[in-house]
């Protein structure tokens, strides 16, 4: 589990705007391990999607990406993604890493049949079209779609869930190593979400995929992911395995997020929304980005930015007061789970 396929270092994404420069990803270091499912969780506007786009060097204009993103293919030399030429980038995308994102409902060109989307992808990546289309059919079958019907359909003739699954099939067409899912289930109903999640698990096992899954739906991630990383105010504040995050979170924000998660088994008055609002991307945040909302914040937090520290082998968090966090920010049902263990 210590074989990284992606190494992200000092990643910054910023946009020049009329109110000043918005830094929407700030100094992010992240490793993605081969064949794992990494969940990136955070509230909306925390920079998750931008981080994901930066993995493909696909931050939209006029954003600028700095730092380094290194991709290590299973064979061959490492690739510095941010330094690829336009041609190299075109090859890199979808062949090595594919991305399924929020707008999947309108991810297909409305004037073209689904078959043509598959065909042109094969064509532009110089693949054998016949073999590719056969693969497309088996992929569509594996996402429980009728290949003949779907391939001959126009996008508007498919339901949202069908389009989403067709897009997942399309994303696997060129056998990528990594697939980035940016809120792929956001626009779907609960049943469809669950079936797509179990589908992803199957696909991961059969295709040796590395999955980066981005969502604000923490309960969904805990079922799917091996590791979680929590993003707050454009920075990663805690990274650990799912169990560690659930039972041993070190950062007050992670703990607050966990107790803010709606759960049918918990009474409404036991759920806690986090007070205050998240910072503006234009602001330069002094000290810890979470200090205005943190119950543990003191002088040190206001002045200095907490470094990312290792708590155990696969657990890093950026907080000066992580020892005091469990007591100060209790997660509901903590005592129950303690008893269980």
């Amino acid at each position, binding site marked *: 589990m210590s074989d990284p396929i992606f190494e992200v270092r000092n990643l910054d994404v910023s946009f020049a705007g009329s109110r000043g420069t918005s830094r929407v990803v700030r100094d992010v270091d992240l490793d993605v391990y081969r064949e794992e499912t990494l969940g990136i969780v955070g509230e909306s506007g925390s920079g998750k999607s931008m981080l994901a786009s930066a993995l*493909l060097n*696909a931050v*939209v204009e006029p954003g600028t990406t700095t730092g380094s993103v290194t991709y290590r293919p299973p064979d061959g030399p490492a690739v510095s993604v941010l330094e690829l030429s336009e041609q190299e*980038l*075109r*090859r*890199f*995308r*979808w*062949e090595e890493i*594919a*991305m399924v*994102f929020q*707008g*999947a*409902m*309108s*991810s*297909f*060109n*409305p*004037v*073209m*049949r689904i078959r043509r989307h598959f065909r*042109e*992808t094969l064509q*532009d*990546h110089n693949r054998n079209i016949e073999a590719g289309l056969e693969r497309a059919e088996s992929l569509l079958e594996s996402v429980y779609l009728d290949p003949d019907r779907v391939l001959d359909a*126009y996008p*508007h*003739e498919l339901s949202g869930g069908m389009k989403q699954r067709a*897009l997942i099939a*399309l994303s696997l067409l060129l056998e990528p190593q990594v697939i980035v899912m940016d809120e792929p289930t956001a626009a779907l109903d609960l049943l469809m979400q669950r079936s797509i999640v179990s589908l992803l698990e199957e696909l991961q096992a059969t295709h040796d995929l590395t999955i980066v899954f981005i969502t604000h739906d923490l309960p969904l991630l805990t079922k799917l992911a091996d590791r979680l990383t929590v993003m707050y105010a454009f920075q990663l504040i805690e990274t650990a395995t799912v169990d560690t995050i659930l039972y041993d979170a070190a950062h007050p924000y992670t703990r607050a997020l966990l107790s803010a998660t709606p759960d049918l088994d918990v009474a409404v008055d036991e759920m806690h929304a986090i007070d205050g609002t998240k910072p503006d991307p234009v602001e330069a945040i002094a000290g810890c980005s979470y200090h205005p909302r943190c119950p543990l914040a003191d002088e040190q937090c206001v002045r200095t930015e907490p470094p990312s520290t290792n708590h155990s082998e696969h657990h890093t968090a950026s907080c000066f007061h992580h020892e005091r966090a469990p007591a100060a920010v209790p997660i509901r049902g903590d005592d129950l789970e303690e008893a269980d263990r």
Partner: protein
Amino acid sequence: MNWNYFIKRFGQAVLTLAATITLSFVLYHAMPGSPAESLKNVILSQQAASGSGTVDLERLNRMVSMYTNIQPDEPLHVQYYQYIHQIVIEGSLGTSIYENKPVTELIFERVPWSMFISVYALTIGYSLSILIGSVMAYTEKSRFDSVSSSIIIGLNSVPYYIVGLLLIYVLAIQNEFFPYGGRVGSNVAAGFNVTFMQSIIWHAVLPVVSMSMLGLGGALTMRGNAVRVLGEDYLRVATLRGLRRSRIATQYVGRNAILPMYTQFMIGIAGVFSSAVIVEQIFTYPGVGLLMYNAIQTQDYPLLMGSLIIFTTVTVIGIFIADVTYGFVDPRISAGGSDE
């Protein structure tokens, strides 16, 4: 192709044509002093000029009927039936009073010339506007974008006939680059040869340029469409899919941005025909437009009604083709609509 849809559209087109023919019939009757009276005056004055003496009423009615397809001595419904019968079954639009030739003959010998300049004007106008619009969208907010936006808005606010007059003044009168009238040089022999064709093109340049100003406003529409498409999710997915840039530009941005221009283009065909009346008059270009203009001047009612019917027919056919083919261009319309 959905036949119900086709038949429905076809029915609508036929209905519109029938309404136009009826309208022209009503107009004949609404003319001051009824068609018989007014035509009688025209014919009498012509005959007085040629000095052929008196005419009896029956002969006058026959002449009215020959010119207009209306038999003034019959009851109204018989007149209407015969009028429609003449036009639809016999393909006759009456006879021009002034030229004393069948209206259809007069119009159809002029139609190719009008078609020639208007098809070029439309094609050039729309191709340019699609090109400029796309470049503007790609370079959104750049200097090129803002400068050409202002120029196009400026050109759009100046009526095309003013542009035509300016062109004549600058390019034909002040500098004799182009002829300022006619459709072919007077000393050029007609025939299938280079000089003749050059002369035709030479004479068509100014009318075509001033008419294509009409289509150029489409550049702003195209810009708007393309900017909208550039923000679509499928465009982002296409980029992430690593598709070739040329494919994305033509089949994703171009194709989707041109869709709304298609109907506009088809309806534009009709607009160009009617604007031909003014353009051809300015450039004394002998097409259908000038024919109609002269018909107004000489009170040549049959010719006027004939042009009305022909113009409407062209418009209706244009819109019908647009309607029927739109389903092929945009599958979401699926030429049948709501049965999905």
